[in-house]
């Protein structure tokens, strides 16, 4: 195609300007020399010859300039002409242009929005670290949606010393720390890390340094800390002299040795870390010495693969090494799964990507379908429009325009529409990309999300706009450039030009729109129903009228004893408040990703080989089950009498009994958790604490006074008689009366915070839902446009029919039937497509089958009604045709 060729040579001369110039120089110089030589042969002196040549042809450089500029200018000129012509055409037909641009903008926005989210999470798993393709996260045991840290420090150290496939293995443990000794103490998510943490990630501090190898595990000299950019700015006003100064973490002094770069907020996607401390300081921060134990798995690990090593090789090596470690220390690894698995960061089970990687690609597929639908829509608009331009095109063809020129003209017009749509999409995406945040309820987790339009999104948007433009532009361009010029020119304006049933292409486009929108609507219906089913399902507790509030005691200086005493006071004071029905404490709250696990040994149960005995463990206060309204099936729940001095007791749920002691009486059985043995005193109904869509899993409940973890958050659960939100201030007051210094955080109704458990389902349902609605709208506009247009074309025919005695009802049926036949075909095709498509969603659905008959039927009916309404308007108009006017029409 000559446009491409010109584009090619134009761009070539832009990019390879030097080479082209050099060649032109050489060619022209040799031309001038040859001309001079000819003159010399005729007897001139070399000087005279050169002058003669210059006189005739001008200076060589002037000539060069002339030729060079002409090449580029002519290219630009042709393009400019086409552009101007297209712009004029689009401006002349503003309604068409606006609808086409809007349609494309919506289709493209769907893609760019999902992409901007993907770009911020899956594709940029560690903000501040540009290259993450050679980083893998290391997990242990079967992949889980709620994985726990895989390694003890000695295990990780041994692996790290022996591995040949990794150039570095880093370990870290994240938890809340309190920045104390400042005006306003703050709870900050921090990490204890191995000394090589920053080196393996390749993160350079913007001030000071990161950890030295000797600071990693042996604690000699002063405690050191690297602070995040936000902490540096918010608490130390960006003090340029901060390095070397002392700050307090959990009331221990630390020397700041460095400040991390602004973008870097830890290496777990979606969770923000703002402080980094070497592992050796575990004792200072939490008063424990976990690094000494091989049997305590508390470290997450990330590895940097050596160049040329594949993930599988590294995995095989780590498996072998781990096996060796397990054989040497069988006692420490008895109750844990020891299989190693590696994941690239975009689907790391740790952090938010573990969930998102299943949803976003699926949403992107749906968005692509929507864009395809938008393309079909615009293509049908273009086609209808091009019929109106038949004469114009025929005249151009007759006066010497080549078919290629016409196609080029059409494609430039499409490109213009595509790029306008893309530009509009970018503007809309500026806003929609931020909407990810709206899905996050208040949470105790340091969730972070920073979706925005980055370079990648911009680039893809432009590419998508161009591809879309070609997709919707090519068929109308080919179709309208191949006109039978003679007959079009002869054909007077009165003749009927196009009937729906005569244009296979137009009908095909209508069918495509109906069927694609059916696919999207079915997906929307399935996701929405699935979310509904989940929200309506019984979680096993009653969320309404429950207020939550959390505090953390150990940073405030409480010990096990004083902490337990404080907790008791809290319960006493709160239960005395008016409007409080009952109150309890727990180390987690339901459906907010906060329940913990423990490795347990159960009386009379022999685990299968490699069976993980890591079981959800809830530490709860007296009256927990009464407050949450989770009924006891047998035995009793915890009371004030279950204290450190009494018999150690536990409650398990029904799923626990079914799994480990099926058919037996659980009451009285023994469970070993670390050094302690608990006797089961009660069995509770199943309750869901992780996600509503998950099957009930075994849970063990331990009483808070017997199993006190002062290092963890304590969350007050308060059942109120009225609106829980109104109790917030009196709860805060009560706690501050007990300790004015203790920060209370995440004071929110349980019904709000538990939305985190359905975060991903809501993202999917919202997106699929809006895609479905848009799709329906586009299809309705599409079928309306085509039927309305063809009806207008048939005014004469309708007039004749009426003149010959056709009834209005017959005319109405004629038009409606035409549109409706296409709709029916579209519905049949769409149903087949949807059946093929929805099995991809199976894993994300809860409580509905992917071929759910209700969804399919109702969506089909809905679409049929919408299409009927869309056809009804032109059909009604057709019945009002006045035969006399119609016959004289044009």
């Amino acid at each position: 195609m000559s446009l491409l060729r010109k584009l090619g040579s134009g761009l070539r001369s832009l990019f390879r300007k030097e080479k082209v110039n050099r060649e032109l120089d050489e060619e022209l110089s040799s031309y001038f020399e040859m001309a001079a030589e000819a003159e010399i042969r005729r007897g001139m002196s070399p000087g005279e010859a050169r002058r003669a040549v210059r006189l005739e042809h001008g200076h060589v450089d002037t000539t060069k300039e002339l030729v060079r500029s002409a090449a580029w200018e002519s290219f630009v000129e042709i393009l400019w002409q086409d552009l101007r012509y297209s712009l004029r055409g689009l401006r002349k037909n503003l309604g068409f242009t606006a609808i086409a641009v809007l349609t494309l903008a919506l289709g493209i926005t769907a893609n760019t929005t999902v992409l901007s989210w993907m770009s911020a999470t899956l594709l940029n798993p560690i903000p501040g670290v540009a290259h993450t393709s050679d980083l893998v996260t290391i997990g242990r045991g079967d992949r889980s949606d709620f994985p726990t840290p895989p390694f003890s420090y000695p295990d990780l150290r041994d692996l790290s010393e022996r591995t040949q496939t990794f150039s570095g293995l880093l370990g870290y443990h994240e938890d809340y720390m309190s920045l104390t000794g400042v005006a306003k103490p703050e709870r900050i998510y921090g990490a204890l890390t191995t000394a090589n943490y920053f080196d393996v990630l390749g993160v350079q501090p913007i001030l000071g340094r990161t950890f030295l190898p000797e600071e990693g595990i042996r604690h000699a000299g002063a405690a050191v800390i690297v602070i995040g950019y936000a902490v540096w700015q918010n608490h130390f006003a960006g003090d340029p002299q901060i390095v070397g100064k002392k700050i307090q973490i959990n009331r221990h002094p630390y020397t700041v040795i460095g400040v991390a770069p602004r973008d870097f907020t830890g290496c777990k996607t979606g969770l923000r870390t703002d402080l980094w401390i070497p592992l050796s300081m575990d004792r200072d921060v939490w008063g424990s010495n976990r690094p000494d134990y091989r049997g305590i798995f508390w470290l997450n690990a990330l590895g940097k693969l050596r160049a040329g090593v594949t993930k599988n090789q590294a995995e095989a090596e780590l498996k072998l090494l781990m096996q060796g470690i397990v054989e040497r220390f069988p006692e420490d690894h008895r109750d844990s799964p020891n299989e190693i698995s590696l994941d690239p960061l975009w689907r790391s089970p740790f952090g938010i990507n573990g969930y998102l990687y299943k949803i976003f690609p699926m949403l992107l597929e749906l968005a692509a379908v929507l864009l395809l639908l938008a393309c079909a829509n615009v293509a049908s608009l273009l086609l209808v429009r091009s019929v109106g331009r038949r004469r114009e095109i025929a005249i151009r063809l007759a006066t010497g325009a080549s078919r290629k020129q016409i196609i080029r003209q059409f494609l430039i017009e499409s490109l213009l529409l595509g790029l306008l749509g893309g530009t509009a999409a970018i503007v809309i995406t500026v806003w929609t990309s931020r909407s990810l945040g709206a899905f996050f309820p208040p949470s105790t987790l340091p969730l972070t999300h920073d979706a925005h339009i980055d370079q990648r999104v911009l680039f893809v948007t432009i590419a998508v706009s161009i591809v879309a433009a070609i997709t919707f532009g090519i068929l109308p361009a080919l179709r309208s450039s191949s006109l039978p010029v003679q007959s079009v020119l002869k054909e007077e304006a009165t003749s009927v030009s196009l009937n729906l049933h005569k244009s296979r292409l137009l009908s095909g486009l209508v069918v495509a729109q109906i069927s694609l929108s059916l696919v999207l609507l079915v997906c929307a219906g399935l996701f929405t129903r699935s979310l509904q089913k989940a929200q309506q399902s019984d979680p096993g507790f009653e969320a309404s009228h429950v207020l939550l509030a959390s505090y953390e005691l150990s940073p405030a200086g409480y010990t096990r004893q004083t902490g337990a005493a404080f907790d008791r006071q809290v319960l006493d004071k709160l239960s005395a408040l008016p409007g409080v029905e009952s109150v309890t404490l727990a180390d987690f709250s339901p459906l907010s990703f906060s329940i913990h696990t423990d490795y347990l040994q159960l009386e009379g149960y022999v685990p299968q080989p490699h069976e993980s005995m890591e079981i959800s463990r809830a530490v709860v206060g007296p009256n927990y089950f009464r407050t949450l309204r989770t009924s006891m099936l047998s035995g009793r729940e915890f009371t004030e009498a279950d204290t450190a001095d009494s018999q150690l007791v536990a409650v398990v749920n029904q799923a626990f009994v079914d799994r480990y002691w099926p058919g037996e009486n659980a009451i009285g059985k023994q469970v070993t958790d670390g050094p302690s043995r608990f006797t089961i005193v009660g069995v509770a109904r199943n309750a869901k604490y992780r996600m509503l869509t998950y099957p009930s899993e075994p849970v063990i409940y331990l009483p808070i006074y017997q199993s006190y973890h002062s290092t963890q958050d304590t969350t007050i659960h308060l059942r109120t008689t009225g609106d829980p939100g109104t109790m917030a201030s009196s709860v805060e007051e009560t706690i501050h009366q007990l300790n004015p210094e203790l920060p209370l955080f995440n004071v929110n109704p349980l019904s709000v915070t538990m939305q985190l458990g359905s975060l991903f389902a809501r993202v999917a349902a919202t997106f699929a839902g809006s895609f479905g609605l848009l799709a329906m709208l586009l299809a309705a506009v599409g079928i309306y446009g085509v039927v309305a247009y063809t009806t207008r074309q048939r005014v004469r025919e309708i007039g004749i029919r009426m003149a010959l005695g056709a009834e209005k009802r017959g005319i109405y049926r004629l038009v409606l039937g035409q549109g409706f036949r296409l709709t029916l075909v579209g519905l049949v095709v769409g149903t087949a497509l949807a059946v093929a498509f929805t099995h991809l969603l199976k894993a994300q659905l809860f409580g509905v089958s992917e071929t759910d008959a209700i969804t399919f039927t109702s969506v089909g009916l809905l679409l049929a009604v919408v299409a009927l309404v869309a056809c009804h308007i032109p059909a009604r108009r057709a019945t009002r045709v006045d035969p006399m006017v119609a016959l004289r029409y044009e």
Partner: protein
Amino acid sequence: MDKQSDIVQGTLDMLILKTLALEPMHGYGIAIRLEQMSKGVFRPNAGSLFLAIQRLQRDGLIDGEWKATENNRRAKYYVLTKKGRQRLNRETREWGRQAAAIARILEAS
């Protein structure tokens, strides 16, 4: 050829195609051949000539290739492409028709 060249731009293109139809040639060779064949009537200016060559090349009617000349100088030789030959044939026919028509008009008046 300065003022005229605009008017007969298409003509120059056709003439270049014609010279190349005989054998591949470099820029200066084309100029000389044109002058010879027109018995000195056409002496294209280097600028117009290379503009035309560039245009023809861009339209895919001719192709260029660097080669050594008989005097062992490096020069870009241009060859007629298949498309170029078709164009030449078509334009030659068209030219004959138009020239005849114009002649008839001029004679009639």
